[in-house]
C-alpha cells in the first residue's frame, strides 16, 4: 500500500459505516411511523428464524437445491472471511491501528478467493441460464456481481503477480484498492444492502410466523 491509497481506504470505510448508519436510522424512523412494525418484532422468534436460515440445508428450499446451497454458503462465507482474515490485510490493520488477529494461511486465502470468484461466475451464469432468474434480471444485477468479485479478482491477480509485464504491481494494487473501496461504499446504497437488511427482514418474518402464526418459516 502506498500513502496515496490511505484516503481512498478511509473514504470507503467512512462511506460504508456512515452509509449503513444513515440507512439504519432512516429505516428505523420509517418503521416507527408504520406503528405495527416494531411492536411485531419478537426477539426470540426473530433470532430463531435467523439461526435457521444461516445453517446450510436447514430449510426445505436449501435441501431442494443442494448445488445452489453449497455455492451460496461457500461464496458468502469466503466473501466475508477473505478480506478480514487475509494476511496481506492483517499487516495493514497492524501497521495502521496495531490490531492483530489470526490470518488465513496464504494457500487457504487463495482458495477462498477463488471460491468467491467461482461463486460469482456461477451466479452470473445462473442469471443467464435459469429462466426464472433471467426473467427478473437487469443489467445492474450483472454489474453488481462483477463489482463484488472485482476486488477478489484484482487482488488475486496482484498476488499471483500476473500480467506484471503490462500492468505494474503498484497499479494492480491500486486497481484492487479502488475496486475494494467501490465495493464497500456500494453496500449501503445498492442491493448489496441485503447484507444489512437480511437480519431485519428475516427477524420480522420469523416474528410473524413464530409469535403470531405459531408456525415454522423454514
Amino acid at each position: 500500500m502506498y500513502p496515496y491509497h490511505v484516503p481512498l481506504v478511509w473514504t470507503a470505510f467512512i462511506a460504508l459505516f456512515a452509509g449503513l448508519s444513515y440507512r439504519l436510522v432512516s429505516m428505523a424512523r420509517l418503521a416507527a411511523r408504520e406503528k405495527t412494525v416494531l411492536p411485531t418484532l419478537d426477539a426470540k422468534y426473530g433470532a430463531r428464524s435467523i439461526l435457521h436460515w444461516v445453517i446450510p440445508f436447514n430449510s426445505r428450499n436449501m435441501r431442494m437445491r443442494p448445488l445452489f446451497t453449497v455455492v451460496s454458503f461457500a461464496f458468502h462465507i469466503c466473501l466475508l472471511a477473505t478480506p478480514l482474515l487475509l494476511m496481506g490485510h492483517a499487516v495493514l490493520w497492524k501497521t495502521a491501528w496495531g490490531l492483530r488477529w489470526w490470518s488465513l494461511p496464504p494457500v487457504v486465502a487463495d482458495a477462498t478467493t477463488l471460491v468467491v470468484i467461482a461463486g460469482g461466475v456461477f451466479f452470473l451464469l445462473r442469471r443467464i441460464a435459469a429462466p426464472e432468474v433471467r426473467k427478473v434480471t437487469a443489467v445492474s444485477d450483472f454489474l453488481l456481481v462483477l463489482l463484488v468479485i472485482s476486488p477478489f479478482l484484482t487482488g488475486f491477480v496482484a498476488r499471483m503477480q500476473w500480467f506484471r509485464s503490462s500492468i505494474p504491481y503498484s497499479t494492480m494494487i491500486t486497481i484492487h484498492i479502488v475496486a475494494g473501496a467501490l465495493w464497500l461504499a456500494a453496500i449501503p446504497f445498492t442491493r448489496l444492502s441485503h447484507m444489512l437488511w437480511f437480519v431485519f427482514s428475516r427477524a420480522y418474518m420469523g416474528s410473524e410466523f413464530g409469535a403470531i402464526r405459531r408456525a415454522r418459516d423454514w
Partner: protein
Amino acid sequence: MADAVDMAIVDKGIDDSIGKLTPERIESVIRRVLDKESGARLQVYVETCVRCGLCAEACHTYLSRDKDPDYSPVAKVKATLWEMTRRNGRVDGPFLRNAARIAFTECGTCRRCSMYCPFGIDIAYLLSTVRRICALLGIVPQYMQDTTNAHSVASNQMWIQQDDWIDALMWQEEEACAELPGALIPLDKEGADVMYSVIAPEAKILAQLIGNMAILMKAAKVDWTMPSADGWDNSNMAMFSGDYEIMGRVERAHWERAVQLRVKRVVMGECGHAFRGAVYDGPKWLGWRGPPIPMVHAVEFYYELLSTGRLKIARKITEPVTLQDPCNIVRGRGLHDKLRYVVRALCEDFRDMDPRDEHNFCCAAGGGVINCGPPWKLSRLKSIRVKAEQLAATKAHTVITPCHNCHSGIEDIIGHYKLGMHTKFVNELLVKCIEMPGS
C-alpha cells in the same frame, strides 16, 4: 410468456373501470399507498430482493404452468410493484389491467413463497399492496368487489338478510335436535364459554354444518352460543380486495359482538381466511395486536374435544382419505399436527400428501382467488395442476378440507381434472363417528 387466454379475460370490474382513470389519479393513488400507507417493510423488501428466483419453486401457479417464469412470485412483483415504484406511479391502463390480473387471480397470498425466500420477504404482502392500489383505483374483479359490497352492507359475504340468518339457525336447531335430542343452538347467551362464528356460506348453502356443530356441542357438553345479530360472519373478502376500511368494519362488528356477549372465547368454523381475518389482518388494522378475546379454529377445538375425551369416537371412516392443509391455519397457525391427530382419530386409512404441513400447496381458491368468480375459473384451475397431481397420487376417495375455500377449490379441481373424489369438512365426519350421548 403469460397465458394469452388468461390475459384476454374480460372482467367488468377491471376493464370497465380502468377507462375512467386519469394519469393524475393513478399516480396520486400509487404514491399515496407507497409513501403514506407503506413504509419500512415495503422499502426493505423491495431493496433486499436480490432477484435470485429461489421463490419460484414455492409457487403452485409457477409449477402448474410448466415453470413459466412469468408466474414466479418475484416475476409477479416485478411486473407490478417494482414497476410502480420505479416509474413513481406513472403507469397506464394496460399496465394496471395486467397488474390487477396478476395480483388478484394469479397470487392467492398463500405465503408459501415467503418460506422459500432466504430473506423472508413477504411477497404476499407486496402483492396485497398491489391489490390495495387497485382497490383504491376501483379496479377489482367484479365478483370479488360484489362480495366486498356484501360485507359492507350486510356484514356477511353473501348479502344474507338478518331474518334469514336467525331463521337458518332455528331451522338447523330443529335438524340437530332430530338427530340428537337437546342439541339446541343457544342464541345470544351472555357469558357462554364459546361463541361459535361461521361464514355466510354456512348459513346460505351449507347450513347442515351449523346443525352438525350443535350436535357436537351437545355431545361434548359445551356451554356455547351463536349471535343472532350482525357480527356473526368474520370472513373477509374486503381483506383480499384491498378494502381495509370495510375489512376493519366487519372485524370490529365481529369482535364487539363477542365482547358484548362476554364469551370466554370464539371458536371459528372450518374456514381459513375468516380465521386469518379475525385473528390477524382485521385486529392489526384496528390496532389490536391479536384478537381481543381468544379465538381458536374449529380444528384446534376438535383436537381439544377429542384429546380430552369430551368427544369419543364410536366408529371410524374406513374409505381412504387424504387431507388438504389450509394455508391460513397451517402456515397461519401451525395446526397441522393437531389436524392430523383429528383425522387419524376419525379415519382408518389416512393417506397424507407431500409436501404437507407448512409446506402445503394452496388450493388456489384462497386469498380471494375463487371469489374472482366465473371469468377466472379456468385460469385458476390451470394454476393448480400440482394439487391435482398431489391428490391423484394419494388414491384417496375423500379429501378432508377444514376450510371453505379449500372445500370449494378442491371440488373444482376434482371436477376439472376428473379425479373422482369428493370433499368433506371434518365436522361432517365427526358427526358420523362420535359416540352420541345416551346411545
